[in-house]
């Protein structure tokens, strides 16, 4: 058998003890353990003076017992330090956590009470006290430390064994009002009937901090039992419990703390085991009056009688705040109040993420809270994937019953029950002050049997439900009121700006928005089919509108069918004569046996009905069961009116023009009420091709058709419908169902509040939050702030795609400025992307010449790269060895002389058909040979300096340069005095570079020479010895003449001249 620390029994033990002795003698103790405690008490510590730098050292069980004895005698060790030097073996342990001995040695706790408490600093050094055994079920303050008072510190300690005590029992400390940190307990804690038991501390006082501790053993206690602390008034942080916290008969059991009192805080803790108790049972805390944040109850099983929750069972006293917690697992209660986060809760639950199964048997069952108590209580920003089951009472995806506010929650899964109130968010939203705001429900809501109210948001509501959306089916049983939003909305209630698209089915009173309403239903949309089976009433919006009902500005397109006589209507199945119905549109089919109408199933009071329209499809029933109501369009068909006309009529509320209905461009312009008004309402917008730096400079802009690598500008005037966080606004392009991907390299400049901001996209993006824009000339991002409702602001965005590769897809895009939720209203500017202009450049080789073929494949639309630009070709050359070569000064490029040595010459597109290179006039021409020619096309604004423009295409060729030729001619007449009678004159001619020589005879008159007629550019034959004989015209008068000899190259270009005077005597 091996003990827990791996000690060897039998003959080897002596050897091992000898080795331990050697280690101790050598003061080497890092990985060692003490000898088994004898039960005795040492005379003192192993060493040390108790200072921080020289703490008292404990190396054996006897020395630990001495320390306990010393505290019990009244030494508090306040300001003093004690440190373990190795594991302390009090009792041998089996690997399963039981004691090796049937009668282990009991250890005397360190500190017995307030008057005999430990106040110093105990450092376990990471070592373990092995085999702690305490069994004092009749005595309070049990644990390794019985009582650690204010200012005490216990750290870096591990404990295993078993501790049983009366009140205030914990493995590390029965009571602590100091710091316990970095401790690990595998020590089982048990109690019978007494209170305050914890895996680390039984009771943690107001000054206590329990930090980064871990408990893996089970904790069993009576009232106030917790995996870390039975009761805490202080701080518990970063602790983990994986053991079971259990007791099936008492209250206040929590995975971390049994009770977290007012002023306490539990943060960053994780509970992974199971928690079982009677009342007030929670995955983190049984009951709390303090704060709980960033905690996780992972795969946890929590069960109890009443007030059972995944995080906390219930709340008491002050307002509790639960923030950023996560729960997964199962929460079950046999009685009332069971919730994924809390059973009964007064306070705020925010930003929690829950994936739980909630099993209730009666009363209040909620995916987040069983009962949200008090009008000040809130559940906000939570996401819950839930399965909520309840045998009776109220059940909701977020709360069974709520007296407060539930907002911004997303609920999925299933909510089911057998009677009473069943809702996707809340079973019963109780009281006129209750609210459900901005919630989204995609779960299945179903009443399995019985009677009551079933709704996509609330089964039953007395308060306000607004801006909520339901996409799942809602199904009632025999006698249920069933509504897409609420099963039953009582007098004074208000349902507004809600939408339901799921199928609504029931046997009782069934409505697309509300089964029955005695309150206000306005600006709602139902697109799901409504089926009132058997003998109920069914309406596209409301199944039954009571005397206090006001049904307005709502739209139904779901098919309404009913089998009973109660009334089947496109808007309302049955309407009380005192109820008001106006400005509604039904575009769904309506089908029933009797009391069937496309607006109401029964007759309306004409005083209370106006501007109600229905789609008169073939076979459509009349507006009411007694026909249409023409007066004030009380219930009339659309008829020959256009949807635009209907839109105008629906926005006219007895002469008051409202701005509620908008045409749905995706539905042939059918008007629909704006149920989710965007914060950002664009009241004016413009768009321009290219870059415009201020709307005032640009005038009105109505259209932009651009290439994919171009630029455009949009401006907006925005009026904020509600308070709006400006940095959360988003700039994006949408092609309808899909947002455009702005390619990497896109730059956007934003003008807001008179300041310019920018962003350069390093990676593709579909949206740009305004908070990511950087102020020009700084590294500060757009601060924005919050715009109050009705604030008007102007924005300008310049979208520059010229640095992209033109990946933006072809199409027409709406250029959107939206709020952080992607919503905006108003007419947005549009930009059409037509494609990409492409260019192909081919340079053709030649000798002293080359040519460029430049093909442009262009699309329509503004191209910022080429607008107002000409195409110019940059031409450069490299030698055979790859070295760059300058074009020599004097080079003629198509007769344009280069006036300096330059690396580039430029040729306009229109001159590029054939480009002749002539270096004959160069002082320093290139050597003859082959050169690599690089031709790059630019779009530029100047012919001579295009290189700041956009390079478009590149081509290469070989340019062959002929060897430079030196031309020269020298002519001399051996005899320049010619007799007038002579017929010829002889010249001696030398040439260089060419041999084609022509002569012109000129006669001198005064100081000038004039060509002699018929003697101009006469070919000269040069005979052997360079002798050429020129004939003189007969009758040449006496005088002074000059013969000009011209040397021409093979191309007929004049290359050199020489002249010689002769005198005809």
């Amino acid at each position, binding site marked *: 058998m091996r003990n827990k620390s791996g000690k060897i029994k039998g003959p080897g033990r002596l050897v091992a003890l000898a080795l331990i002795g050697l280690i101790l003698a050598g003061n080497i103790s890092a990985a060692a353990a003490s000898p088994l405690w004898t039960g005795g008490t040492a005379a003192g510590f192993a060493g040390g003076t108790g200072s921080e730098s020289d703490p008292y050292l404990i190396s054996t069980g006897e020395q630990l017992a001495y320390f306990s004895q010393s505290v019990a005698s009244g030494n508090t060790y306040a300001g003093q330090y004690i440190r373990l030097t190795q594991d302390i073996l009090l009792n041998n342990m089996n690997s399963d956590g039981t004691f090796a001995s049937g009668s282990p040695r009991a250890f005397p706790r360190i500190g017995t009470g307030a008057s005999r408490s430990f106040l110093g600093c105990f450092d376990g050094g990471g070592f373990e006290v092995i085999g702690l055994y305490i069994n004092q079920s009749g005595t309070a303050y049990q644990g390794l430390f019985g009582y650690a008072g204010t200012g005490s510190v216990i750290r870096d300690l591990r404990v295993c064994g078993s501790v049983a005590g009366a009140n205030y029992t914990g493995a590390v400390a029965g009571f602590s009002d100091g710091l316990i940190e970095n401790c690990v307990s595998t020590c089982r804690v048990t109690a019978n009937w007494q209170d305050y038991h914890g895996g680390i501390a039984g009771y943690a006082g107001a000054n206590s901090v329990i930090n980064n501790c871990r408990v893996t053993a089970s904790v069993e206690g009576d009232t106030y039992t917790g995996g870390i602390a039975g009761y805490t008034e202080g701080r518990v942080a970063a602790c983990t419990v994986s053991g079971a916290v259990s007791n099936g008969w008492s209250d206040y059991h929590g995975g971390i703390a049994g009770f977290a009192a007012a002023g306490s805080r539990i943060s960053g803790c994780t509970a992974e085991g199971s928690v079982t108790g009677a009342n007030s049972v929670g995955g983190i805390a049984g009951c709390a009056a303090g704060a709980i944040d960033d905690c996780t109850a992972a795969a946890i099983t929590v069960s109890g009688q009443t007030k059972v929750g995944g995080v906390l069972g219930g709340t008491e006293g002050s307002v509790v705040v639960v923030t950023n917690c996560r729960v997964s697992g199962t929460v079950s209660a046999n009685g009332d109040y069971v919730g994924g986060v809390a059973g009964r809760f007064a306070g705020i639950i925010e930003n929690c993420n829950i994936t739980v199964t909630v099993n209730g048997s009666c009363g209040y069952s909620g995916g987040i809270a069983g009962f949200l108590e008090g009008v000040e209580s809130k559940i906000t920003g939570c996401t819950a994937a839930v399965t909520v089951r309840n045998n009776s009472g109220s059940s909701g995806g977020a709360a069974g019953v709520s007296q407060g506010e539930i907002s911004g929650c997303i609920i999925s899964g299933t909510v089911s029950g057998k009677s009473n109130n069943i809702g996707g968010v809340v079973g019963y939203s109780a009281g006129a002050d209750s609210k459900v705001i901005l919630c989204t429900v995609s779960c299945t809501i179903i009443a399995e049997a019985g009677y009551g109210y079933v709704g996509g948001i609330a089964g039953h509501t007395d308060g306000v439900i607004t801006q909520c959306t339901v996409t799942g089916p809602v199904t009632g049983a025999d006698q249920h009121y069933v509504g897409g939003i609420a099963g039953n909305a009582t007098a004074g209630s208000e349902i507004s700006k809600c939408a339901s698209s799921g199928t609504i089915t029931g046997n009782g009173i069934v409505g697309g928005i509300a089964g029955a309403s005695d309150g206000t239903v306005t600006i709602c949309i139902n697109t799901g089919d409504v089926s009132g089976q058997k003998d109920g009433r069914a309406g596209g919006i409301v199944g039954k509108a009571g005397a206090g009902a006001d049904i307005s500005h709502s739209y139904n397109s779901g098919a309404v069918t009913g089998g009973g006589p109660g009334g089947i209507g496109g808007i309302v199945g049955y309407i009380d004569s005192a109820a008001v119905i106006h400005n509604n549109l039904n575009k769904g089919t309506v089908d029933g046996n009797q009391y069937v109408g496309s607006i109401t199933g029964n007759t309306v009071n004409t005083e209370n009905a106006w501007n109600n329209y229905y789609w008169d499809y073939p076979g459509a029933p009349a507006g009411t069961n007694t026909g249409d109501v023409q007066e004030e369009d009380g219930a009339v068909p659309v008829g020959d009116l256009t949807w635009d006309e209907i839109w105008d009529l629906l926005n006219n509320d007895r002469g008051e023009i409202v701005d509620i209905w908008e045409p749905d461009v995706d539905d042939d312009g059918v008007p629909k009420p704006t149920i989710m008004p965007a914060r950002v309402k664009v009241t004016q917008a413009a768009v321009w091709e290219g870059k415009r730096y201020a709307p005032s400079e640009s005038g009105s802009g109505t259209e932009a058709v651009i290439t994919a690598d171009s630029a455009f500008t949009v401006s907006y005037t925005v009026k904020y419908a509600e308070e709006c966080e400006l940095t959360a606004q988003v700039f994006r392009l949408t092609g309808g169902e899909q947002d455009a991907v702005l390619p990497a390299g896109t*730059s956007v400049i934003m003008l807001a509040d008179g300041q310019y901001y920018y962003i350069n996209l390093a990676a593709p993006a579909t949206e740009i939050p305004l908070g990511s824009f950087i102020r020009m000339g700084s590294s500060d991002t757009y601060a924005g702030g919050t715009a109050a409702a009705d604030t008007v602001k102007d924005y300008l965005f310049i979208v520059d795609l010229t640095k992209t590769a033109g990946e933006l897809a072809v199409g027409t895009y709406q250029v959107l400025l939206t709020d952080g939720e992607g919503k905006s209203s108003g007419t947005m500017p549009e930009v059409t992307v037509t494609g990409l202009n492409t260019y192909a450049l081919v340079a053709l080789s030649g000798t002293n010449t080359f040519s460029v073929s430049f093909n442009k494949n262009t699309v329509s639309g503004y191209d910022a790269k080429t607008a107002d630009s000409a195409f110019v070709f*940059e031409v450069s050359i490299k030698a055979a060895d790859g070295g760059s070569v300058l074009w020599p000064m004097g080079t003629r490029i198509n007769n344009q002389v280069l006036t300096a040595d330059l690396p*580039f010459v430029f040729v306009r597109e229109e001159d590029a058909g054939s480009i002749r290179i002539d270096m004959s006039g160069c002082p320093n021409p290139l050597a003859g040979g082959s050169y690599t020619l690089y031709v790059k096309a630019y779009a530029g604004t100047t012919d001579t300096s295009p*290189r700041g423009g956009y390079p478009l295409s590149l081509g290469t060729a070989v340019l062959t340069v002929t060897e430079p030729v030196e031309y020269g001619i020298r002519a001399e007449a051996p005899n320049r005095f010619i007799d007038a009678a002579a017929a010829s004159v002889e010249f001696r001619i030398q040439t260089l570079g060419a041999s084609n020589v022509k002569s012109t005879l000129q006669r001198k008159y005064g100081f000038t020479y004039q060509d002699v007629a018929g003697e101009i550019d006469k070919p000269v034959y040069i005979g052997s010895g360079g002798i050429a004989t020129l004939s003189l015209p007969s009758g040449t008068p006496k005088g002074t003449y000059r013969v000009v000899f011209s040397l021409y190259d093979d191309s007929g270009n004049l290359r*050199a001249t020489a002249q010689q005077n002769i005198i005809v005597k």
Partner: protein
Amino acid sequence: MKKKKRKKSLAFTIIIIGLVLLSGAGAAGYIYSVLLNHYKATAENRFYFTSDLLREGPDVPVYDIYYDWASSDDTVPITIELRNSESALNVSSVAISYTVKASGLSGGHAGILPGNTASREAVTLNVPCAAIGQPFEVTVTATADSPYRKTLTGKFVVRPLLSYAMDDNQGSPVARLTITLTGSPEPEKDVLISWGEGAEPDMTNPAVMSASVDLEQNTMRIRLNTASVYELVFFKDDPSVSYSDVTVLGAD
């Protein structure tokens, strides 16, 4: 005796005039010298005085020099080459003494090209610059003083490699800086742009994006193509004021 002398002098003058009328040799610039020395010189003393860049009138060749000068105290070097030949066939048979001068430059350069064999000499003149960034013209004249007189001329337009201008931006939210780099033997040029308070450069400009920007000092160093025109937008703090507090200098 006196009459005889007068008759001799008159005859000599007539002969001279006759020779002048007869002579068609060479350019007018040195006919006088021919006559003064000896008519037969044109046959025996071949005279060629040429240059790589300078030409004999009347058409004066024009050249561009792109130069980046930092102050008006700078000088720009202008180098020309003088030759005593037109081709291998046409080499001066006599030594040529010459002087080279440039407009705007006091003094000049004098030298001698030896005769009979082809020779050439490079002459560099360091001409004072005008105000920074202001183009100016320099006319260089090389004159052969003996044995014959001949003048070669060339005009050199010294242009700043780098120039910039800010638009008239009063009332506009932006100021547009135009930077022009002329052609240069170097394909790229580093420039240093400094700007004062009141405006910030467009950080989406591709040149700026590749620049080393110091937003604390309001400077940026950019490598720009030569033979180019760039526009850089500055976003003004106050559109109503005219902003021009930008300098652009060539950087080493």
